């Protein structure tokens, strides 16, 4: 098992009031593609960050288990975690451009990620980076290599982050909305690339996304989150037939190219979904 999370809780205190953003999440991951979908603000990104020990200092974290492979993340030192991040685990953050260093070129940042793991020469690193940029369908890899983050488009920044996360050949890729800024043709190609890595190299994948059809087509398993909890978990191919009323409500809100509607239904959120089920 690559990831084992049991009863994860994350809370913040603001203006004297404690607010629990993640309320007893349990999930495990093997060499597979796990999708996480759900409400905006339900704790998807916080859960992913907790696993990499990247939460803000103000976050109060507890868990019965929080393991990455053989590492107890709760007890691990910052040095240990740094070796995992950007090495054994690639992490594509939700705001790609703001996770890139604004004063370094994109090429030099991917070079660094590659050398962290491969220990090759500067020339080898550059060649590997150009190859990666080409694989994520950047039209002009040399130009983007020399560009600063503010000089590329939203989707190019996202692809640079993906290239950087994949550069050290990670065992696990955590991707938080990695394709939200990509057109369908580029998205299809990137997913094919990720799928190859899962199938050929046994990489694990946690894919956080709001795109239900995409997760349903691409992932093996999916967790649906609402207000800090997992509402239901199922085979991804069954997502379109989900039974929980929250998930059903979500599916019903989607606009469609082929079946237009005048007005989109809105979700009637029910109090019972807020009740804690983990304890």
């Amino acid at each position, binding site marked *: 098992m690559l990831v084992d999370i049991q009863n994860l809780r994350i809370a913040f205190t603001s203006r004297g009031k404690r607010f629990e953003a993640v309320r007893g999440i349990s999930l495990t991951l093997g060499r597979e593609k796990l999708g996480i979908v759900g409400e905006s603000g339900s704790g998807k990104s916080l859960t992913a960050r907790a696993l990499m020990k990247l939460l803000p200092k103000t976050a109060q974290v507890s868990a019965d288990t929080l393991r990455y492979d053989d590492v107890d993340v709760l007890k691990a030192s910052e040095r240990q975690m740094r070796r995992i991040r950007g090495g054994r685990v690639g992490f594509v953050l939700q705001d790609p451009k703001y996770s890139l260093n604004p004063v370094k070129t994109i090429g030099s940042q991917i070079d660094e990620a590659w050398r962290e793991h491969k220990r090759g020469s500067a020339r080898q690193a550059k060649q590997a980076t150009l190859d990666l940029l080409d694989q994520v369908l950047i039209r002009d890899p040399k130009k983007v290599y020399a560009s600063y983050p503010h000089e590329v488009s*939203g989707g190019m920044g996202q692809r640079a982050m993906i290239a950087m996360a994949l550069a050290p050949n990670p065992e696990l890729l955590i991707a938080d909305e990695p394709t939200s800024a990509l057109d369908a*043709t580029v998205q299809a190609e990137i997913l094919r690339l990720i799928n190859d890595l899962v199938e050929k190299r046994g990489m694990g994948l946690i894919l956080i996304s709001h795109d239900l059809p995409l997760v349903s087509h691409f992932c093996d398993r999916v967790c649906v989150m609402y207000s800090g909890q997992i509402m239901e978990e199922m*085979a991804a191919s069954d997502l379109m037939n989900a039974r929980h009323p929250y998930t059903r409500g979500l599916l019903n809100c989607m606009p469609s190219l082929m079946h237009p509607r005048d*007005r989109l239904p*809105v979700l009637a959120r029910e109090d019972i979904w807020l009740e804690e089920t983990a304890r």
Partner: protein
Amino acid sequence: MSDRMIEVADLRISFSSAEVVKGVAFEVARGETFGIVGESGSGKSTVLRAMSGLNESWDGRILFNGEAVPKRRSREFFRKVQMVFQDPFGSLHPRQTIDRILSEILLVNRIGEIDRRINKALSDVALPQTARFRYPHQLSGGQRQRVAIARALIAEPKVLLLDEPTSALDVSVQAEVLNLLADLREEHGLTYVMVSHNLAVISHLCARVGVMQNGLMVEQTSVEDLRAGNVSHPHTQELRRLSVELEDVPAEPSSVSQAKPGA
């Protein structure tokens, strides 16, 4: 008053000698919504930024309400034409609370009833009142995007330029935002230009769509023709094919989902 709210003609934009927008033209009628889709890196955001007055180095013509706008826009222009940026994190001041971000635009434009307007703007985009005194980094990605939408709406603009406004939202909040945009268009005759990669979202709100590739608008089509597949450019056809494929729902459940208690 012209019934053509927006006119863009032969728009060209370069960055250090590389031309990235190579002569783009389109028109949007008052109260209409024009969608822009197309390849990542093709110049969509660059077109919107030039229209919004944020980037002052472009060539060609941009007209709002029948009047050609100068490179440097007036304060009045910035109130009437608002933009929602693709990167909400980058467009929100990191050291200002949401309350400050929203009140500032009202103060600058001398608009009163600040408290009432902020409360309404937050609830319009389904943000809890608790978000009001937080900083951008204390919100989730989708909550930040909603702040950006609230900020664009709060000063009651006439034109909204929307760059991927719902890409960080779950589909339930997306539905609320799309309904809100449709209502405002109906009630106040707002005009929108919306960039999105999601053809379902575009087709829901827009009547016409422009498709961009490599700095050019390679095709303009009505949403009906897009839906019916009456499109001629290969890039449009490819985007449509992939979108239709994803919408294809597997008919038979292969196993039963395990709903947790509370269901």
